[in-house]
């Protein structure tokens, strides 16, 4: 690909994301900082990665790598160019055949001082947050000095609900919470539950923790 094309495409994609969903960052408990971080977010739509990237300050964005599925984003030269070339994505095999390699690749990014974006639910929700898969736990054990920052993506499930090909532009806020504190001797299940609670607590809508209810995107005053 022509070298100039990728920055142009990146700016185009991020600009379009802002025009459609705003992608405003709200730092609530953490501040932008160039330290190795695992940003873990709720998975709401195809636009999640772009929205979180658009919300990050440019200098951090350049050092942050969204973790994306190899089977989809490595599927064609164009997809690969968008994911890897424009958005610094780390493509991983999610079939389970190469778990050790995936873990090595993610740890290598963090150990080089850069950051990752993960969606630990593994599946798209409808405004509710599903139980987390265990990858986040293993990664935090492997690289204990990486900060675990919850990012609640607000409203984006209303923009593109599951099974809807059309997109309704709404203002989506990325709420960056306080990093998880380390708890000595905590087991996997307790850690994953606590991480999920930290993410859910950033939500302004009371329905995020309970499945099967309609969220309205209402915010409280202030």
């Amino acid at each position, binding site marked *: 690909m022509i070298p100039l094309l990728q920055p142009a495409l990146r700016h185009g994609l991020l600009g379009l994301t802002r025009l459609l969903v705003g992608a405003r960052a709200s730092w609530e408990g953490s501040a932008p900082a160039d330290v190795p971080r695992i940003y873990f977010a709720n998975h709401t739509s195809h636009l999640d990665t772009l929205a979180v990237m658009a919300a990050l300050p440019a200098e951090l964005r350049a050092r942050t790598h969204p973790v994306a599925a190899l089977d989809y984003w490595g599927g064609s030269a164009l997809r690969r160019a968008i994911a890897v070339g424009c958005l610094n994505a780390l493509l991983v095999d999610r079939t389970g055949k190469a778990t050790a390699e995936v873990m090595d690749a993610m740890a290598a990014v963090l150990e080089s001082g850069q950051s990752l974006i993960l969606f630990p639910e593994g599946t798209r929700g409808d405004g509710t947050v599903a139980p987390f898969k265990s990858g986040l736990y293993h990664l935090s054990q492997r690289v204990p000095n990486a900060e675990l920052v919850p990012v609640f993506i607000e409203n984006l499930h*209303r923009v593109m609900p599951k099974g809807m090909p059309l997109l309704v532009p*709404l*203002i989506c806020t990325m709420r960056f919470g306080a990093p998880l504190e380390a708890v000595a001797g905590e087991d996997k299940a307790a850690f994953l539950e606590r991480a999920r609670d930290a993410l859910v607590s950033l939500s302004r809508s009371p329905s995020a923790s309970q499945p099967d209810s309609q969220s309205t*995107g209402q915010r*409280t*005053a202030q």
Partner: protein
Amino acid sequence: MNSVMNSVTNFLTTTDPLFLWLSGAALGLLVTATLIGAVLAWRVQTPAGRDTVRNLNARIRSWWVMVALFAAAMLLGSVVTLVLFTLLSYLALREFITLTPTRRGDHAGLFLSFFLVVPLQYWLIGIGWYGLFSIFIPVYVFMALPSLSVLGADPTDFLTRTAKAQWGLMLAVYCTSHAPALLWLDIPGYRLPGALLLLYLMTVAQLSDVFQYVFGKLWGKTRLSPGISPSKTVEGLVGGGLTAVAIGTGLHVITPFSPLQAAGMSLIIVIAGFFGGFVLSAMKRDLGVKDWGTMIEGHGGVLDRLDSIVFSAPLFFHLTRYWFT
């Protein structure tokens, strides 16, 4: 260097002198406000006062951007102005629908509202089809949107959902679009560019807002309606409104109106602007928010800035069209 000088000279001699005068006045006003803001920031002592001054300076900074944007659009011509308003309507509608509960069944209708109704309304204005643009949203979209939603077979909150979507379109798109539609009015005997009528409406409405804020801060005692808008005071409304009417009367030179007619028009813009802002404040209270958005620093969202236009633009448009064309 020479070519720059030439193009500046060329610009100054070909541009309407009234436009230059008004740009100069706006520039002077903004420079004065910026200087006052800087002095206040230097002299302020209390934390509460510091907050007020910080908010004031954020507002003034945003005014620079907004005035520059409109001046550029008006200089570049009516189509650019129309495109700017299309974008503003899109952003305002996005703010409104974000705060409004929606369900799956509304999705297709909302998609069409943003990507078909918004551009179509402005396109109808651009081609000068008055008969259709003035009824498109209140009649045809009014029937089409619930017809689409009802296909979702979901009666939960149906009336509320439908009504709120329609109100969003009426405020953010239909009402707002009457402001740039002023550029398409053909007024016999009026030789100035139609952009000056738009400038007149915006200036009177926005200055009324600014002076109501200033008068309210300085002399406001009697709260008008603390339950809806805690910052609105009777003193602010009367003082700010009368100041805006006085300026609007003086600006009759850029309009087809006599001084007396301009006073009447300004009064209508001020009253309609007040009620537009007041009604939108009540809606914000109802939705549980302080501002419609966060896009413009110190002002909130696009709809927070357009709220004095939404009611005054259609009124001003129709009164001008009925009596002067």
